[in-house]
């Protein structure tokens, strides 16, 4: 680093000149004002570009089909919620339920199995430890497309195509590399002293893991948990290959993302776009609510998960 750091005296003299808080005004201040307007201008434009399409789409749920085909900037004429109830009947409710059923099992299972593997690899030296670690982590590097064809036939052979348990196991397996990678680095940072104390108290390895180490790893678990929830909730490729009805009598168990795309095709034919827009709005709202409630943790979780 070649930045010249000024002598502390000089800098503090400059700073104290503003009596604590720097005032706007003066030479540098007016410069700041102009640039502030400049930065706000750009930032506001991008904010509008993010929000506008979303609001526009939600408003579309209150339009009629012909109004959607007409001018895009028209104000909705019909403030009834019937498009929403029709979208629910068209399957959005079911798609939600299917996705929830899968995730109720897949996320806890991912966290449990991922943490177990990561814990053993992080804290127990044994021959081949590094090898296992790299083996687990390497899976994150490959595009899922590479495995898609054999994966389909593997799940078929296990007779688990279009079943919840099949998709749950596949989700857990594909979330493993990242979960192990992240939790491994987290378990390594936990102090050894606590572990030793527990051993002296006579706790078994399994008990130490569940009652001491896992609770201590809570911040890490939250970060990876968010990552896995978002990743599995938004997964599209795996369900669209693995969750297709196999016979005429096989019920459809579409996930939400898959169902939305299905709805898009269907509504294109039936020319009932308000239903599609309502469906997307319904799918968007829970994510918006969850995000706004936990935005700090979500942002921190995703960024730390990526930067590790």
């Amino acid at each position, binding site marked *: 680093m070649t930045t010249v750091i000024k002598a502390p005296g000089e800098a503090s003299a400059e700073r104290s000149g*503003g009596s604590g808080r720097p005032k706007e005004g003066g030479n540098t201040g007016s410069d700041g004002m102009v640039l502030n307007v400049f930065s706000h201008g750009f930032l506001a434009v991008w904010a509008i570009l993010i929000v506008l399409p979303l609001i526009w789409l939600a408003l579309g749920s209150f339009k009629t089909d012909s109004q959607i085909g007409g001018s895009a900037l028209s104000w909705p004429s019909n403030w009834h919620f019937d498009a929403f109830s029709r979208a629910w009947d068209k399957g959005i409710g079911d798609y939600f339920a299917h996705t929830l059923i899968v995730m109720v099992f897949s996320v806890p299972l991912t966290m449990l199995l991922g943490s177990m593997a990561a814990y053993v690899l992080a804290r127990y030296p044994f021959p081949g430890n590094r090898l296992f670690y790299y083996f687990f982590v390497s899976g994150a590097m490959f*595009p899922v497309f590479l495995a898609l064809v054999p994966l389909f036939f593997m799940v078929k052979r296990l007779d688990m195509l279009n079943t919840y348990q099949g998709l749950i196991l596949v989700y857990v397996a594909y979330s493993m590399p990242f979960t192990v990678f992240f939790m491994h680095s987290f378990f390594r940072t936990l102090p050894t002293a606590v572990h030793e104390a527990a051993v002296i108290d006579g706790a078994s*390895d399994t008990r130490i893991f569940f009652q001491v180490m896992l609770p201590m790893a809570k911040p890490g678990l939250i970060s990876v948990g968010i990552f896995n929830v978002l990743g599995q909730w938004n997964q599209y490729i795996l369900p669209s290959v693995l969750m297709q009805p196999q016979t005429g009598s096989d019920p459809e168990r579409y996930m939400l993302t898959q169902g939305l795309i299905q709805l898009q095709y269907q509504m294109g034919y039936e020319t009932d776009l308000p239903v599609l827009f309502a469906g997307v709005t319904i799918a968007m709202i829970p994510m918006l609510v969850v995000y706004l409630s936990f935005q700090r943790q979500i942002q921190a979780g995703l960024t730390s998960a990526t930067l590790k």
Partner: protein
Amino acid sequence: MSQVAQGKGRIGFIAGFLFLPLALYLTFVIWPYIQTFGYSFTNWSGQSPTFDFVGLDNYAALMKDEVFRGALWHNLLLLVFVPTVTILLALFFAFMVNVGGRSGAGGVRGVRGSSVYKIVYFFPQVLSLAILAVLFGAVYRSDEGGLLNGFLTKLGLVDPAHPVEWLNQPNLVVWCLLLVVVWHGVGFYLVLFSAAMQSVPKDIYEAALLDGAGRAQTFLKVTLPLLWDSVQTSAVYLGIAAMDMFVLVSTMTSGQFGGGPDHHSEVMATVLMRNFLYFGKSGYACAMGVVMLVLTMILSIVTLRATRRERIEF
């Protein structure tokens, strides 16, 4: 590593904890990956249990496949533009949010309301790509009902009788898709770069300010070098996303598994899926998977190499 953890009788514990995760991972991830290589040398249809070993025939056919070559070209275009545009915009906004509001002597801080910007910008990141596909399908509608055409018509830039066919124009479609990816990604990388910027000690900025560095200079000489690690990581992530693109292309563009009009938005992933699920050419699809893997590996290594610089400690 814990010394307590060493000792006898732990092999059972270790094996017990590793068994299930490893079994699942081997069955559903590693074994299919390995099989892909094997199948890529066969003419397997996916339907019949029998197939023949055909050597490198699939790879030779890939080289001659016009559609696949076009797809490869589109992936490469996206590979260059997705990371460049997203990272530049994200860096610009991150700098504005974090350092843009500096005023007075010694004060380096974000613009007012910076946390609101961060919340809004990040939102697309929690939406699924399926939602984005439907949303932008509507935005790009080829009549006045599309948000984009609606606006341009209102401004008098587009003749209402001949609106722009965004996703049906051979020379526009890839760029329309690019915009969706950028729209989706900028917020996330802004937050990522912000986190990195905030970990830079304030004194460094203040020192630059006292030395009379302007905003552009501060950015180029101070911020960017300190953020280089994050930029590099982002480039790799965005590059991998640009190699994929399956969801957006297959749902937003015309054709079986997308790729239209007339293969002008084809990417490798859509060609792969069509050959696998539609044409029943599993062996051929596997060969494409292998090519995608090789390209992804090359991409990661080249990006990390090309952008390697001396690491700056602070």
